[in-house]
């Protein structure tokens, strides 16, 4: 078998040093779930599939899911889930009262965000399920996903007064598939002159989905819960060599083709046509 572990750990055991965390992209057979708690004022307990996964004492503003890191919460068990129905029960930590109890249906190949948030205008506890987009229309683009999960009227999303998306009402989402860039002074509001949720300058890296969930009101303030999914753009391979000079195959050094190429190179070098670097450790 040609594949070899030459030193150290192989792929199978990189998990023990925390380097083989589940890849961000869903597979054809599994689903990923992210959870966002955007209901101000209530700390909750979340029970999934009759205790298979439980998250206790989840405060408002938490985003949890596979592969996430601080300031979000990484929960790798929420990644790579088999398709099917998963019962989700959300209770108020303070008094164990039930806030939500329903089945979440997961399809293979889909990345979900489950958001607990208030309705508008009543402010009742509800859960909305969104699907996360994992592809960009162009290499070099990223995604800004904006979800209206606050108890406030319809808003649009602006950058320096230019409308980027909307209007969005409670429960809606807008996805911007745009070039990687820093978008100045991004805010959401009922119109360009009335910022309700201010996000500042938003830096969007290529191949990243920045997911923004409106949060509020908390007292009188509005804000957002944010997490990111990276690695949306992956190459098909790394074609890193073309001259055959370090061939390790059976024909290396003895085959006609190997000898022929080496001979040709020697001729070209001797003729001054090619300048060959002799040292492997050349510095530039």
């Amino acid at each position, binding site marked *: 078998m*040609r*594949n070899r*572990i*030459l*030193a*150290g*750990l192989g792929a*199978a055991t990189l*998990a023990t*040093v925390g380097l*083989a*965390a589940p*890849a961000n992209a869903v*597979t054809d057979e599994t689903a990923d779930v992210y959870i966002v708690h955007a209901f*101000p004022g209530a700390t909750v307990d979340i029970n999934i*599939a009759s205790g298979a996964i439980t*998250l*206790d004492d989840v405060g408002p*503003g938490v985003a949890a899911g*596979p*592969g996430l890191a*601080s*300031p979000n919460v990484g929960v790798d068990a929420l990644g790579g889930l088999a398709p*099917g129905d998963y019962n989700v029960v959300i209770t108020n930590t303070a008094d164990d009262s039930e806030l939500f109890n329903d089945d979440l249906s997961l399809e293979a190949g889909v990345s979900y965000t489950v958001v607990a948030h208030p309705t508008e205008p009543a402010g009742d506890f509800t859960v909305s399920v969104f699907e996360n987009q994992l592809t960009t229309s162009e290499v*070099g683009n990223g995604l800004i996903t904006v979800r209206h999960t606050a108890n406030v009227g319809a808003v649009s999303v602006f950058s320096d007064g230019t409308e980027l998306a909307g209007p969005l009402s409670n429960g809606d989402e807008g996805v911007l598939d745009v070039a990687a860039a820093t978008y100045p002074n991004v805010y959401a509001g009922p119109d360009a002159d009335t910022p309700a949720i*201010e*996000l500042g*300058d*938003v830096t969007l*890296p290529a*191949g990243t989905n*920045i997911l923004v969930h409106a*949060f509020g009101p*908390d*007292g009188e*303030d509005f804000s*957002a819960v*944010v997490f990111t*999914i990276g690695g949306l753009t*992956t190459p098909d*391979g*790394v*074609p*890193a*060599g*073309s*001259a*055959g*000079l370090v*061939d390790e*195959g059976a*024909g290396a050094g003895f085959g006609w083709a*190997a000898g022929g*190429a080496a001979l040709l*190179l020697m001729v070209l070098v001797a003729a001054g046509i090619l300048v*060959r*670097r002799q040292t*492997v*450790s050349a*510095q530039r």
Partner: protein
Amino acid sequence: MSRSKGLARTIGFTMASLLLLSGCSALGSSEVRERGVSARDTKIVLSNVETVSTLELLQQKTTPPARVRMPDLGIDMRVEAHGIESDGYMSLPESPFVAGWYAYGSAPDSRTGATVIAAHVDSLPEGIGPFAGLRESREGMTITVTDDAGEVHDYRVVSVERIDKDEVPLDRVFTATGDPHLVLVTCGGEYDWRGAGQYLDNYIVTAEKVA
């Protein structure tokens, strides 16, 4: 910027949940790539520890790598940003004496994921490049990446693999998740003289971040 008082709420972890939250799976060291909900339940308790607002993620900037050094193998090369060619493969500098950083992935100062740096192992005009030495990498060797801001990032080799190009786990090599780490890639193995005019394997060196 308006900030919600709710987001100042604290989040914390018990010792048990630290194991579950890291990339080290509580399911044991065996590779678990396809699974339903695990047979062992996952319970995570978040309580009463200071947290930073997630709004900062909107302004996260990272710094491209500028130089990669591996003293044990005599590698000391400039790094330039690269993306994807029209054929879908990673773009690379023409010279095997310059390395390419996959700019649509993580950088050394990213919170998570693989910083992927690759270089041609050789070329006809220039001969054999420094990354030809990667096959001699050993666990524990040091790799240093200096970024555009002059910041120095240190890594230690944990794995050296030679893998058939058709079998390279690209999702793992280019992963955006997991502790920040470094992956060096080049070509090697048998050279396909008659057919594609390229090497059949990739050498992949994985290194964990130590500073």
